[in-house]
């Protein structure tokens, strides 16, 4: 596979093998000789943000899929489809800028602050929202940007369902909504596969995250808190990392980990898709 690229990163990893041990620590301090890095925060951050974003994408994309394929009539359907297509190709930096300038303040004032005030005893709401740059904001914008991709995949999957099953459920007198439930049942493995692919993409997403997650080296599970993901760490520290001995290799190590998880997720997703494709045509 792309061991080619892995090979480039690997020397950096070997050079800094110690890092693997200190990965459980999350105190990165880049003093020259006393350098100590731990990637726990960005790793947890990456997973947290990406998984949350994918979970948000799930209902949005499934709903969009059925709305586009079944509910709307030609004109509206094409219109909605075009909008989704435009959203799908829109440069991520635009999403990021919008997320940081428009959505973050709005979320902070109207969603995070009230939740913190009233429901602050729940752990994921228990930190005071300061800037609006947080796990929640990043996940939300990431979800909005990922939904078109998953929707496109799901529509493709929908079109692969043999027409006889659609006919079958209609002929039994099912309502439109009941038809959706059945079609969703048929699509379920494919939906999961698509979400895995979306997860893979979300993990590698840099621009949106770097602009909305707060870029704080902090291990936290609170939704309103700033943290780092591996790409955002790389994006913000790369320039200055050149000046130190072990900073760069650490970043490469993070990148390697990211690559492995990302490729793993997409591999499972693609395999699931192939399996589903052969089963559905029985």
């Amino acid at each position: 596979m792309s061991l080619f690229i892995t090979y480039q990163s690997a020397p950096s990893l070997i050079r800094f093998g110690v890092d693997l041990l200190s990965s459980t620590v999350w105190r990165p301090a880049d003093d020259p000789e006393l350098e100590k890095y731990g990637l726990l925060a960005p790793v947890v951050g990456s997973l947290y943000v990406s998984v949350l974003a994918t979970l948000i994408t799930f209902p949005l994309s499934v709903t969009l899929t059925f709305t586009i394929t079944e509910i709307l009539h030609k004109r509206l359907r094409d219109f909605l489809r075009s909008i989704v297509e435009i959203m799908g190709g829109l440069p991520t930096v635009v999403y990021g800028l919008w997320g940081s300038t428009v959505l973050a303040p709005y979320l902070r004032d109207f969603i995070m602050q009230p939740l913190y005030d009233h429901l602050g005893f729940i752990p994921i709401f228990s930190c005071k929202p300061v800037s609006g740059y947080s796990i929640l904001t990043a996940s939300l914008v990431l979800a909005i940007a990922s939904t078109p991709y998953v929707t496109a995949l799901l529509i493709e999957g929908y079109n692969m369902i043999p027409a006889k099953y659609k006919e079958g459920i209609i002929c039994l007198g099912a309502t439109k909504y009941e038809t959706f439930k059945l079609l969703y049942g048929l699509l379920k493995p494919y939906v999961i596969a698509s979400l895995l692919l979306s997860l893979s993409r979300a993990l590698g997403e840099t621009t949106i995250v770097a602009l909305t997650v707060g870029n704080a080296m902090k291990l936290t599970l609170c939704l309103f808190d700033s943290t780092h993901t591996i790409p955002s760490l790389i994006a913000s520290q790369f320039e200055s990392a050149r000046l130190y001995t072990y900073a760069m290799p650490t970043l490469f190590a993070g990148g390697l980990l990211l690559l492995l998880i990302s490729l793993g997720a997409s591999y499972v997703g693609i395999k699931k898709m192939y399996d589903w494709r052969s089963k559905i045509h029985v």
Partner: protein
Amino acid sequence: MSAYAVEIKNLKVSIKGVEILRSIDMKIRKNTISVIMGPSGSGKSTLLRTLNRLTDFMDGIRVEGSVFVLGRDIFTVDPYELRRKVVLVSQEPNPFPHMTIYDNVALPARLNGIARSKQELNEIVKWALEKVMLWDEVKNRLRDYPHTLSGGQRQRLCLARALAAKPEILLLDEPTANIDPSNTFKIEESLRELKEDLTIVMVTHMPHQAARVADHVALLYGGVIVEEGPAKEVFMNPRSEITNNFLRGVI
């Protein structure tokens, strides 16, 4: 209440400008097996699908004329309501692959709320599977999935599923076209029993099958009904040359 289950007057159907059915007049009595036969492409499937308004989903379709089912104009009633009473079984077996055999049959009963308890549901499933003579073959593996069944068993499963909906009219589109003789025999047996409970309208391109099961038969050729009448009469003394040719396998 009308004595007829289905009354069709001057039905014309065209798809994208091409005339499929030119002018159909037909009356189907309740609790009978009516067979619409004809060569491939004569519009039999379209006629059948008009009866449960599956035609609503066809691109570019134009339907004129009147169709009354169970005394009501099908174009004024709620189509979903219609399809609950008039259930169609497709030519290609289509059991839902992600549901167990039990769940497949139980589905319409669950949706329609016919069963009010688990017990009642079990009974309906058993009844439906017995009617299609599938019960003995699957009673020990109701939790299995349809792909473990043979083609003929799958088609019978679809038939059982349709029965579990307790329809008043059963529409069958070439129900044994892809089925081996023994399964065909079983299905035909089931149909004869079933007409006590409901009205059956069946489409086939095999004249011998029509001869075996039909009470009433109509030959559809070139978009019109060329001949119709009680099965015995049509088969013994066909009035039209076309009927003759069809029965002899020429067309």
